[in-house]
Structures are given as structure tokens and as C-alpha cells.
């Protein structure tokens, strides 16, 4: 892998910006080059939220903006409709099947239906749905080392939040490929 482009989309509050940041932190800890770019502007208010992460192993990231992505995560239906076309041929599309009952329309990409909300609920914390999804992305794409995701989790869930570390690690490994 020289460059890997990831795109995370959903509605505000679904943790899409956090997913992207965790991957970016993990890439940084693994001595890779990375950029994280959120959508910003009027459309953020009440609409879709998304962020773009570009990871490069061998040189600085040329461009933080993308025209296609190796890995696209959609957490709600409007994001699937809008961003399915962004996946590059042969790339991966991760669909949050808890909230999206439609299927992908393309057959030149790999599609993963992840019941992120359902799995998180079974674990006992619905708010870890984005971490379940992140686990699926990292498991499939191998874009960053799992230990580096642990490292950012350990930094994030410390002090007052320390009790959330275990459940997040569980959530990260909860999804299994079929």
C-alpha cells in the first residue's frame, strides 16, 4: 500500500468524524503520513457529516481531497445514495445495515453489510456502533495496525473515561466477516 484513501459519511452524531480521526491517529502512531479533512460549511447543520482520510506509507500525502476512495463507510441511507459512486473499482463499501435496508447497486466493488448498531446494542453500549464499524474497516482493509488503534483508544479512554476502554476494544473486534 502506498496510498489509501478512506471516506466516512453519515449524519451528525453517528461518530463518522471520530472514526476518521482514530484511523488518522493510528496511521500517525505507525509513522505513516496522513491527512484528515472534515466536510465543513452550511451543510453540516442538520445534514450529512463526512470526513476524508488519506494515508501514505512512502511519502507525504500529496492531496487531502479525493475523487475516489479505496474504502467508503456509509452510516445512513442518504450517504449510501450520495457516495456509493465514490468507491473506486475493486474498493470496499461498508454499509451500516442497522439503519440502511437498501443494497448497493454496483457489482465492481466489495460490499460489506455491517449491523453496527445491532452488534453494539448486544454488547451493551449502542454508542459504540461507530467503533464496531471501524473494526470492520480495519479488519478488511488492514490500513493501519490494530495495536495503533489500541494506542489511541488507550489515550482517549483514560481518566474519567477509563471504564469505556474495555467495551470499545470489544466493539472493535465484534464484527466478523461472513
Amino acid at each position, binding site marked *: 500500500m502506498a496510498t489509501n484513501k478512506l471516506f466516512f459519511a453519515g449524519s451528525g452524531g453517528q461518530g463518522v468524524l471520530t472514526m476518521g*480521526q482514530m484511523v*488518522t*491517529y493510528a*496511521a*500517525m502512531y505507525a509513522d505513516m*503520513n*496522513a*491527512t*484528515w*479533512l*472534515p466536510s*465543513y*460549511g*452550511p451543510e453540516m447543520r442538520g445534514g450529512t457529516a463526512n470526513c476524508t482520510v488519506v494515508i501514505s506509507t512512502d511519502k*507525504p*500525502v*500529496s*492531496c*487531502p*481531497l*479525493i*475523487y475516489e476512495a479505496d474504502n467508503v463507510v456509509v452510516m445512513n441511507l442518504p450517504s449510501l445514495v450520495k457516495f456509493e459512486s465514490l468507491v473506486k473499482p475493486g474498493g470496499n463499501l461498508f454499509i451500516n445495515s442497522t439503519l440502511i435496508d437498501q443494497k448497493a447497486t454496483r457489482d465492481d466493488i466489495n460490499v460489506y453489510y455491517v449491523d453496527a448498531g445491532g452488534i453494539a446494542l448486544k454488547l451493551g453500549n449502542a454508542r459504540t456502533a461507530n467503533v464496531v464499524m471501524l473494526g470492520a474497516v480495519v479488519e478488511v482493509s488492514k490500513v493501519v495496525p490494530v495495536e495503533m488503534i489500541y494506542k489511541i483508544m488507550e489515550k482517549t479512554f483514560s481518566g474519567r473515561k477509563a471504564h469505556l476502554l474495555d467495551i470499545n476494544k470489544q466493539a472493535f473486534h465484534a464484527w466478523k466477516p461472513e
Partner: protein
Amino acid sequence: MAEKVLMKGNEAFAEAVIRGGVRFYFGYPITPQSEIPEFMSRELPKRGGKFLQAESELGAVNMAYGCGAAGGNAFISSSSPGIALMQEGMSFLCSAEVPLTILNASRGGPGIGSIQPGQADYFQVTRGGGNGDYRIPVFAPASIQEAIDILYDAPALADEWRNPVMILVDGLMGQMMEPVVLPEPKTPVTSADIPKLKPWAISGSEKGQRSVVKSLRLQPEVLEQHVEKLFEKYNRMEQELQKVECDSIEDAEVVFVAFGTMARLAREAMEILQSQGIKAGLIRPISLWPFPYYAFDALTDKTKVVISTELSMGQMIQDVQLGVKGRFPVKLIHRTGGMLPTSIEIVDKTKKILEEVR
């Protein structure tokens, strides 16, 4: 080396100028840089500095003028229409030779415009905006780390030249996060140091030495002499402050010229063209004034066309033409109003241009 941290542009810019010695911030909020005053209001008081939200951009720049005249290291930031209001003060600061660090997160214009990235303020920042014969060095970084390095050095550079220095970014860079290394904080100047370090400043000397910091010179003979003196300084700046990065230009058939955010898109377009066997290169001006005209002298006869790649209707292209001196055709690829092209869009347009010029 210090540990890498992941930082959002706006916070990194603010942290970098504090580490560079700034202790006074005057500002008025405007998207897409309002996180800078927010950061300053939180952080400056902790580090012995002062944050002051002015009643307007005009208020902010004139407070900074007063602060700088007294020897303080001041910083102001705004975005395009706010910078327009501040430019009256910038002319005064240049005339009075008062240092100041300025950040402009430029957005789509004209008018109030949009909050998305724009580069249509190229004329505004390189050609004045304020009145009279004056110059302000303008640097346009293309990554958060480069912005940090430039902002860290900016207060000392402004002091050295006794002139405002501007850093031009945009909202995309302000919102983006990249891993960065922060430089060691400099020891800030104290009131006791100022008479020694800045003998020209109005520092309240006890020995009856009189400092005068002013921009009013009613006698034309005196003003002419003063402006001539300023231009001796600006001429030296032109020699010493040019900064540029060139990539793969020696045998390039097509050479992009781009700065800031657009340079990152142009770089990817260059790489895509190279992967398709088309020899492409990039000239990335880091200083917009003084513009690195000399970089174009390195282009060889292999070059077929130079393409100014801009987020405006074409402003830098005038400097590109001055640098090219008629040796090659100069074309424009652009979007404006806050719209960004994709790198593929740049590639496609470049191929069309190449067909025309071949």
C-alpha cells in the same frame, strides 16, 4: 525530535505563533478562522499574554498597531472581507515600520462571498489594498507543518524587517488535521527587554530619549525620502525572502504553478500525469510577494506549456507571465467562488491544453 501530534490547522497556526513569541492577539471573529481567536482567548492568558476581542477588524488592526509601536509582538487574523477592512491599518503599519504577524484564511469572494477555500485575494494581499507605496511579505504554506514553521518564524521576521508579515491559508487548511511536530517555544520578549531590542519603540524610556512612530509626513520632500528609504528595504526583501519549491521541472513538458491548497491538488494531478507517461512538473511559490520569478528560468526547451492553477478567475497568472517572459504559452486552470476542482479534473483539462499547444 519532539513527538508528532495530530493537530487541526487553526489550532496549530495559533500555537505556532505563540511558540514564536507572540503574546498579544487582537481580533474579531469570522469564519473560517474563528477557532484562532477562540484558541487565543483560552491559551494566551495562561502564557502571560493578552487576548482582546475588538469591536471590529478596523479596531483590531489599530490595537495591534499601538501594541507593535510600544514594542509588543502582536498577531491578528481574519478572512478575506475582514482582511479588506484591516488593510487600511496595514498601510499605516508599513509607513510607521511597525512589525505585525497577520494570518489570512481566505475564502470565496467577492463581497461576503462563501466560507469555502478561495485564492481570489491574490491581488488583495500581494498588491496592497491599503493606500500608498508599501509592501507586505506574503507566505502561502501548503501543509499544516509548513504553516507552523512559517508562523513560528514570522514574529522574528516582522521584527527584523520592522514590517508586517502575512501568512495566507484557507478554511480547508484551517479544518484539516495532519501529524505535525511543534517547535520549542521561544522566550517571549518582556517590557524590560524592549528598549534594548527595539530602540525605535515607544517603550517609556526614562532617559529622555524620544521615539516617534508615525505615518503622517505632511511635507512631500520628507515623505518622498521616507518612501525611498522604505523601498530600499523592500528591494532587499525581494532579494532575501523569495521562497519556492520546484518538483520535476527540468524535463517537464507541462509545468503547473500553484500555491496553498491548490498546490496539493496540482501535485496529485502531476503525479497522475507522470504515471501515464506525461512529463509534468510543479512550481510552488511559497512567497507570493516577493514572487519567485527566478524559478521559471530553470525551465528548459522541453517545456511546452506553463499552467497557472488557481482558485480564482486568474490572478497569480500575471506573475507567472512575468516569470515566463514569453518563453512558453501560459494557460489557466481554475475554479472559483469556493469550488475546488478534483485532481482528475485538472488532469483532463491539462490533456486538452496539451493537445492545443503540441
